[in-house]
């Protein structure tokens, strides 16, 4: 089990880094983040990465659908799905290997944003390292949740653009839920808030790592990965 996942994981990561698309996506992600971060960095005069942490979830909306859209859709489109599903690798191993590869790319992107942290170290003082660590942790977990959504979208179609749009839409709903609270009736607002990924992210980023947040995000990841595996299995019965 473990070894099949790692074989597929390595294949996926190396095909990511062999394709120009990955680099372009990565560079666009970093450049735009850097611009948003540094343009206000010296104006607010605060020694933290809060702007960065509030901007990244917005870019996740585009970045994560872009890197996950091809995970399964591309295999289906180029017929390699027939190879992948007739060699002795189970459907769950395929999904987990590919999901972990996407997560690695997200992690790499986050790693590059550490450059802002180092400039903060140089010019700032009174830096709250704890807040920064929990901020990054939150971003990684939320990235994993979105990547699970993206993996699922990619299993539903052989068209990468369609996969992109589906995951964008689903992620957008999760993203917008706690921003439209004033428009929803009172009894729904607490449900909306609980379902909103951003609400849980802001809790984690504040440094309050509550088990409720972790359980929520963990179940989102598990739910979409299971759904991906089921979708992949269903293909055999079509």
């Amino acid at each position, binding site marked *: 089990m473990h070894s099949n996942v790692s074989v597929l994981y390595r294949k996926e990561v190396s095909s990511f880094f062999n394709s120009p698309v990955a680099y372009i996506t990565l560079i666009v992600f970093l450049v735009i983040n850097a611009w948003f971060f540094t343009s206000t960095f010296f104006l607010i005069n605060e020694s933290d990465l809060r702007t960065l942490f509030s901007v990244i979830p917005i870019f996740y909306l585009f970045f994560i659908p872009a890197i996950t859209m091809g995970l399964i859709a591309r295999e289906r489109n*180029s*017929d390699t*799905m*027939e190879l992948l599903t*007739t060699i002795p690798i189970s459907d769950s191993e395929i999904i987990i290997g590919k999901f972990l590869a996407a997560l690695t790319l997200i992690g790499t992107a986050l790693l590059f944003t550490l450059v802002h942290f180092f400039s903060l170290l140089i010019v700032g003082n009174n830096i709250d390292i704890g807040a920064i660590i929990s901020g990054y942790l939150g971003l990684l977990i939320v990235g994993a949740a979105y990547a699970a959504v993206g993996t699922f979208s990619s299993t539903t179609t052989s068209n990468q653009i369609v996969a992109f749009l589906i995951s964008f839409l689903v992620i957008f709903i999760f993203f917008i839920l706690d921003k439209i609270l004033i428009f929803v009736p009172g009894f729904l607002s607490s449900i909306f808030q609980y379902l909103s990924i951003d609400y849980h992210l802001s809790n984690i980023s504040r440094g309050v790592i509550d088990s409720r947040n972790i359980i929520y995000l963990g179940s989102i990841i598990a739910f979409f990965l299971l759904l991906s595996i089921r979708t992949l299995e269903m293909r*055999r*019965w079509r």
Partner: protein
Amino acid sequence: MIEVRNLVKNYGDVKAVRDISFTVENGEILGFLGPNGAGKTTTLRVITSYLSPTSGNVFVDNLNVLDNSMEIRSLIGYLPEMNPLYHEMNVYEFMEFVANVRKIEKSKFKSRLNEVIELCGLKGVIHKSISELSKGYCQRVGLAQAIFHDPEILILDEPTIGLDPNQIAEIRKLIKNLGKEKTVIISSHVLQEIQATADRMVIINDGEIVANGTIEDLMSGFKGKTRLILELKNATEESVSKIKSVNSEISLADIKTQGDSIVASLEYPNSLDPRQNIFDYALENKWTILEMSRHKTSLEDVFRNLTIEGGADA
């Protein structure tokens, strides 16, 4: 031994495979023949676990594809019709991926790789990107993928499609060699392909098996018959159909009017040669013979007969 038992596969309302059963013995090369869209690929896809059967099952030794998919997959080497390859990899990387998936030990990889390169003629291209390879080389890489783990069972779906005659001859030779020790199923819509490689053939048409046996078996039902085409002038269909009176063993297979002449095809045993009698009979009736030609039935006719008749009642 592979046993396909009462296999049915529907795609929605489309019945791709309708209750077929056949077996493949160990060490046998089975040719799986049928026109395009007959259900060959669907059947192979069920055997290889790419698709699940609507009903029925496939057994390999004591395992079945519904419960023991992983074990069966590791026994099989499969070259799908579309020959799926990862075009972003080079041949070496692809072989490494296949070896890892097939759990080939690191220490044995190099020697096995060299064997496979030798077998499939990949010497010059091993460090080339797959996207740069010609169709023929892609097919060899596909074959290398299928045989890398030295499987007991080899399933090849239309392995020579799109290749030039030299490449076809080479691949056939390779399959023949592999078939000496392995169980092979090779599918094709080309009869010569199967004739050249297989020990036995199963002919499938419109999702049903229409023939199953060795080439000799299939021929024997039709062998011994000669077909004689007659084109006559100054005759009528009615009078020509009485030609059977020349010899009781002659049967009239077909008769039609073409312009002002009658075209009849007669069938009679090879042992007979009634041409002279027919000539005399025509003379008696004052018919003018425009054509009289003799055809021996070939396997090609057998195939056409089986698959066209079957197609007509669908």
